[in-house]
């Protein structure tokens, strides 16, 4: 069964259609990268999947849980949105950590307060996550005391602390200096090796190629092409994809 399935998703802002009948499916353990030019609708797609935007039409399902579906010509969302929210995590471009909470509180507060999980258990899990992110010594630090790369790793740990089935990334390294990008990509690569299901919007083409099972190329609100990294990056027959990649390799 797929962890995420979006079918025939449409989304307009005012009169501009940003997502035009998009369907994607992500299987358990799969790493999917979404690439495409600026304004092609990549972020909007992630925001629809994470309930930050309401779709105009289409369906959204996490594993066996329906989040949104069509009834006749109108879209219906489930009443139990919080149960849907605990299925995914989202890593933002600019981290969005809570600056007034220490690192450990950033990680622990959502599972403890919102998922009502046992505090000691959560604490131990969060310590393991911080260790994995190489940030065990930053447990009691505040986000403002950390570098961008460290903050982004904390935000990945915060998302993982919710035990999501799937993790979304929206350009996780775009706000980082090149020398800090590597440490974040390394962590994501490690998660990929552990078979974490992930959808990554990125402009880091070589990283997408290295880490993904599947690459989706979006342009102008539609999926132009998808396939293995080799198919999309090395052997594409699609003119639009070729042109996009050419601009990128320049």
């Amino acid at each position, binding site marked *: 069964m797929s962890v995420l399935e979006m079918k025939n998703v449409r989304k307009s802002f005012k009169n501009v259609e940003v997502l035009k009948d998009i369907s994607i499916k992500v299987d358990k353990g799969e790493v999917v990268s979404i690439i495409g030019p600026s304004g092609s609708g990549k972020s909007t797609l992630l925001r629809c999947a*994470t*309930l*930050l935007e309401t779709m105009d039409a289409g369906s959204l399902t996490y594993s066996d849980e329906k989040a949104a579906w069509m009834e006749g010509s109108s879209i219906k969302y489930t009443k139990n949105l*919080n149960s849907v*929210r*605990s299925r*995914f*995590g*989202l890593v*933002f471009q*600019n981290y*969005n*950590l*809570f*600056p*007034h909470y220490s690192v450990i509180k950033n990680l622990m*507060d*959502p599972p403890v*307060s*919102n*998922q009502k999980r046992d505090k000691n258990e959560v604490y131990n899990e969060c310590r393991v996550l911080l260790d994995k992110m190489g940030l065990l010594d930053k447990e009691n630090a*505040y*986000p*403002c005391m950390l570098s961008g790369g460290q903050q982004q790793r904390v935000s990945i740990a*915060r998302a993982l602390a*919710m035990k999501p089935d799937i993790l979304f990334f929206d350009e996780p390294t775009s706000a980082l200096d090149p020398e800090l990008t590597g440490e974040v990509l390394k962590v994501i690569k490690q998660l990929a090796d552990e078979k974490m299901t992930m959808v990554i919007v990125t402009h880091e083409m070589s990283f997408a190629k290295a880490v993904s099972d599947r690459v989706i190329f979006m342009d102008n609100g539609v999926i132009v092409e998808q396939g293995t990294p080799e198919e999309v990056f090395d052997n594409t027959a699609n003119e639009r994809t070729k042109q996009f990649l050419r601009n990128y390799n320049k």
Partner: protein
Amino acid sequence: MDLMTMILKMSEGLGKTCAIFFLTLLFSLPLGMIVALLRRSRLKVVSAITRFFISVLRGTPLMLQLIAVTYGPYYVSVAVNKLAEAYNLGIGLDIGISKNKLVPVVVAFAINYASYFAEIYRSGLESMPVGQYEAAQVLGYSKIQTFMKIILPQVIRRILPSVTNEIVTLVKDTSMAFTVSYQEMFTIGKQIANSQTSFVPFVVAGVFYYVFNAIIGFVMDKIEKSMSYYTI
């Protein structure tokens, strides 16, 4: 009258000065937040009405508002009774000018300061990046939890200096209560000054306010420091 007697007499009014000050803060700080949220309401009517009230309260003198709240109800009742008499309605309102002026004084101060605090809260709320709301939503915080746990603490941190300014102004503004002859410290001082044709009570009042504000400054500084364990 010697200086010591003056100081003692004026000190008697200090309790009332403090009553205006603390009660005003007690009511206006939370009321300001309610007003700020109404001002930000998505309902156009609600936000427009709120904006109108804020602009009236900020655009007219506090002195006038004190007079309106203290004597307004009495004059309204007089007018109503005249009308009732003219049309033989056989009803009558009996609203006098309240003996305990503390109530109208605090009401006037509280709504006036609430409108200033509301604008401070509003600017603080507007300065919050939308990413904080989005992160909270994705992490399963309810709207109320997001506000109480994520947004409000950061807003308070951001607006504390402006709030301190208002509090310092409030200390000095308590003297306005003399317009409705509420026997707080300044009103007493003014009465002594008139009866003794002396300027000294004003000097004493000045020292009182200065010391009061020095204490406020010290306390607010401590609070600000206690919150500056993170930068925004």
